[in-house]
């Protein structure tokens, strides 16, 4: 049995073993789960070293004599002072540095990320030439319908999240109706998302079945199905 066949059988047994959880919780499935987690973690460490640390940190420090890179792990070690009551301030220093960097990056991301979407929300309810140009190939009536649906859903869903006004009195009751409609739209969206989730999960299952039938049992099934598989 060569290495390729061994790997194939190991993968097939692992797949079947993991799927045995569908019947009930069992030690085989749990063992394979731990192996998978361990493999992923080990691979992460290996790849981080070979693809990042070795070339960016170790080699410059050792071979190119850029000695100052020694400070990088020292800064990293400061995180562990979180376990010392007396020296915890050292951990806070480095955490503050990271929080600041992350917050700064997020601020930088925020406007390019969301401002085009806010701008795109202002859709003309009577589409003009510019609106038609933005939707090449679409008929005027299609753009009109799309824009109306978009604006109605946007406003009603936003009204659902408007909690400051009680649903009493004339305005409040109308807000309540809009909010109810918004809730329905949200439910439809969640339904669509759940449908996609089902699709994704079945794709993964089909992927494994494809492996089991095509790669693993493929040779034996060719004659059974009456054609090349």
């Amino acid at each position, binding site marked *: 049995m060569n290495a390729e066949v061994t790997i194939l059988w190991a993968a097939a047994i692992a797949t079947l073993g993991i799927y045995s959880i569908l019947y009930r919780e069992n030690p085989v499935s749990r063992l394979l789960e731990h192996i998978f987690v361990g493999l992923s973690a080990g691979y992460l460490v290996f790849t981080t070293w070979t693809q990042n640390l070795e070339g960016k940190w170790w080699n410059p420090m050792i071979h190119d004599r850029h000695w100052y890179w020694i400070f990088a792990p020292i800064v990293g070690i400061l995180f562990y002072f979180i376990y010392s009551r007396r020296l915890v301030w050292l951990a806070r220093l480095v955490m503050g540095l990271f929080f600041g960097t992350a917050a700064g*990056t997020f601020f930088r991301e925020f406007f*390019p990320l969301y401002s085009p979407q806010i701008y*795109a929300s202002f859709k003309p309810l009577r589409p003009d030439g510019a609106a038609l140009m933005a939707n090449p190939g679409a008929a005027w009536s299609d753009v009109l319908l799309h824009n109306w649906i978009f604006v109605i859903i946007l406003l009603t869903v936003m009204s659902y999240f408007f909690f400051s006004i009680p649903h009493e009195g004339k305005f409040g009751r109308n807000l309540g109706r809009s909010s109810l409609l918004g809730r329905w739209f949200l439910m439809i969206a969640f339904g*669509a998302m759940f449908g*996609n989730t089902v699709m994704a999960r079945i*794709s993964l299952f*089909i*992927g494994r079945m494809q492996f089991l039938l095509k790669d693993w049992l493929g040779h034996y099934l060719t004659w059974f*199905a009456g054609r090349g598989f």
Partner: protein
Amino acid sequence: MEKREADSFWQRMQQIPRYYIYLLLAGVVVWQLLWPIRLPIVPSSASQGLYDAIRAAPDDKLIVISTDWDASTQAETGPQTQAVINACFQLKKRFVIMNMQPPMGVKLSNDIATELAKLYGARYGIDWANWGYKYGYGNVLMAMAKDIPKTIGDDYYGKPVTTLPLMKGVKNIKSVGLVIEITGLSAMTETWIGLIQGPYQIPFGAAYTAVMAPIYYPYLDSGQMKGLLVGAKGAAEMEALVNRPGSATTIMNVQSWAHVLIIALIVIGNIGYLLARSQTRGRER
């Protein structure tokens, strides 16, 4: 959990043991994998948008394919990567693979590109390259925006990227004509759009697992995203566009029949619920 006693056919229909449902689903999948009844695949405008974006990418610029996926989503992201790389090779666009998280994607996508490169006679370092796994998310992208060779350093094989002919003239993010993010992780897109697409107006396209795709449609509507592949369906559509049916086409065919079964089960369950409720109410009266 306390078991309810089934006293009618419709109540029993609501309590089908889950093993039967699993077996039924497995049966449909095996049936369609062995004896497929082919259904047509019509590319959506989102998939067409990504194909058009690849076609429109300038020849003197690189396409960056960020393959941020691993074995857990391989059934969807693997065929997506394959279809996107097929499109790049077919349209003779130079591309690079890179990976920021999880690191398994760098090897899995490298295997796909290596296999396809043999089919098209494409050469590593000239027609395509692998920048490898680069840890640091936003920091990597911000640094890439200013200086790509310095940020990337070595490629997947440990060779300095500056030695690759493909990298000749590549300085900063302006040398990139299109970014395609293939992932099952949600945070990656925000980083790419917020730090690269928005500030530098670099065209951006994506391929996501079907679970996470719905939340990204607004980016498509606002024009921040040129195109989008949604799960195995999107991969199958891209395979149709490049006229190279592969595993995603098979998956989608099987999937359609699996969905028919699930819809039927949902309908039976709901009819059962409504009829059982009306029977109970009738008895109460």
